[in-house]
């Protein structure tokens, strides 16, 4: 009796000490709710229980074309991200380092950043076709602006005294960039890369869902129209996991490279 009470107390105590355990319990409760709802309350044409979704993941991957579609989407994401970061870094440096250009073009960049780009999605399809090119282009335009803005902000946050002292000690332009500007820009650059990654994900997936001939957008449409929620949920789950992993990778990199400043 006393032992059971003690065990219960230690269980509660353990839960109080470890919020992540409670978080897992919350997730488990939500999954259980979903399971019950799907099994007993909702039409199986619209929702299937998570157990069934997980069990049939292999069937999703077994569907002809799905692995290739995932690969294609991952390829689009990678290319779009690399392009967005490269273009954003170059433009951000040009805009951030020249005061006149910054004053002239930074407001334009901010205005474009605020625009709901999804309104011009049909234009991208017209210009770049329904293949991978339009997805990449749309991902780039979503990802490039956060990178530009953060790079400009990072260059601007540089203390002028550092530049003046570097110059007075006879640093060349390249040396100033390499040893003063670049290291100070790194933390905000990685913050921009993280924001750029979520932008690229949004852009590519929006374009995929809009029209697609071989990417995952094709299969989400197919599964929706066939009323096959098991496969649809499985595919979306895989994509969500992919998004979480990509975000986590960029975030790790950011924490890693921003560390020197806080120490």
């Amino acid at each position, binding site marked *: 009796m006393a032992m059971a009470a003690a065990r219960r107390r230690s269980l509660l105590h353990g839960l109080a000490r470890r919020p992540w355990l409670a978080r897992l319990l919350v997730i488990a409760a939500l999954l259980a709710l979903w399971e019950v709802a799907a099994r007993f309350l909702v039409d199986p044409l619209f929702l299937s229980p998570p157990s069934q979704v997980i069990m049939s993941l292999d069937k999703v991957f077994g569907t002809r074309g799905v692995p290739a579609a995932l690969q294609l989407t991952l390829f689009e994401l990678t290319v779009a991200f690399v392009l967005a970061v490269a273009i954003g870094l170059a433009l951000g440096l040009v805009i951030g380092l020249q005061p006149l250009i910054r004053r002239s073009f930074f407001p334009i960049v901010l205005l474009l950043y605020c625009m709901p780009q999804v309104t*011009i999605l049909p234009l991208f399809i017209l210009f770049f076709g329904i293949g991978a090119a339009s997805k990449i282009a749309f991902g780039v335009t979503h990802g490039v602006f956060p990178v530009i803005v953060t790079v400009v902000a990072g260059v601007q946050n540089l203390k002028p005294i550092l530049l003046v002292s570097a110059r007075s000690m006879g640093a060349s332009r390249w040396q100033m960039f390499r040893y003063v500007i670049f290291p100070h820009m790194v933390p905000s650059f990685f913050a921009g890369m993280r924001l750029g990654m979520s932008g690229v994900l949004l852009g590519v997936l929006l374009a995929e869902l809009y029209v697609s001939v071989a990417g995952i957008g094709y299969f989400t449409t197919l599964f929706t129209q066939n009323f096959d929620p098991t496969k649809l949920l499985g595919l979306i789950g895989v994509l*969500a996991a992919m998004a979480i992993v990509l975000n986590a990778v960029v975030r790790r990199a950011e924490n890693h490279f921003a560390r020197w400043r806080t120490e």
Partner: protein
Amino acid sequence: MAGNEADSPVPPRFRAKQSHVAAPPSPPSCAEGSGVEVVPGGAFEANSPAPPAPPFPKKKERAGAAAPQAIALPRKQVSVERAASRLIQAGFLVGLVAVWYLASTRWGVNRLLLPNPLAVYDNLLDILRSGEFIDDLETTLEELAAAFALSATGGITLGYLISRSPYWIAVFEPLFAAIYSIPIILFLPLFVLFFGLGPASKIALGAAISFFPIVINTIAGFGHVDRLFVMAARSMGASDYHLFRHVLLPAASPVILTGLRMGFTTALLSIIGSETLASLAGLGHRIVHLAEAMEMARMFAYIVFVIAIAVTLNTIVSRLEARGKRD
């Protein structure tokens, strides 16, 4: 990625201060002058309204410093530079339209890809004059209002309840942040499956997407109030109501307002987006419809119209946010 924050034995309420000091300089957001910006996939970063970094020292200024009229020089120079940048901006925009015009008339770019800007202008005037946009605009604004009302009430209520205990903050904040880092637009096919092609699926998706910035900012606002204020108010005998009205609410409202502004922007974006992807009515639907009918000039006109509406709405919301913070 979500675990490290919660594993520490110190509840976030006590650590809030020191973690802000180490925060990297946050980028300016869409609407400038935001206090706390929640970024996808992570805890919030506080950017104290730091003064803008002084501009780079200019050669002319340094040369003129020794001259007798040194005091008068900088101001004149600043106004000259401002005029120059305005001139460059205007020149850039005029050049863009000129290139567009030349490309569509002289250089033989296909009319189906790039219509004549004059035709677009005529169509825009026609749309505004005939009032044919009213039905679509109404649909979109109704969806937006419903979605934002749902996410704002849900997000603020849930955020307040969670923020009452450091333990619940530690449980839920990383969970919400992790979900916030997923592009929720992925779930659009499911929403369409559940709620159909009509406005219901847009409202549900918009509410689901804008819920997360609001709830995360509400937790951040109420949960990270400086303990000193709370203790001071309590020791002076403040009741629960007084504590809420005079300490918690004023401390939290700037952060919550930022969350509401971000929620509004994302709701607008996702509603127009989901109308573009799958719908029966609304501004996004109209654009896609015209694109499929290959009426390019009219489609461009609608794009200009929708962008103007979106920028206006976002500006209004940012103004409201700034005013709410000032009070």
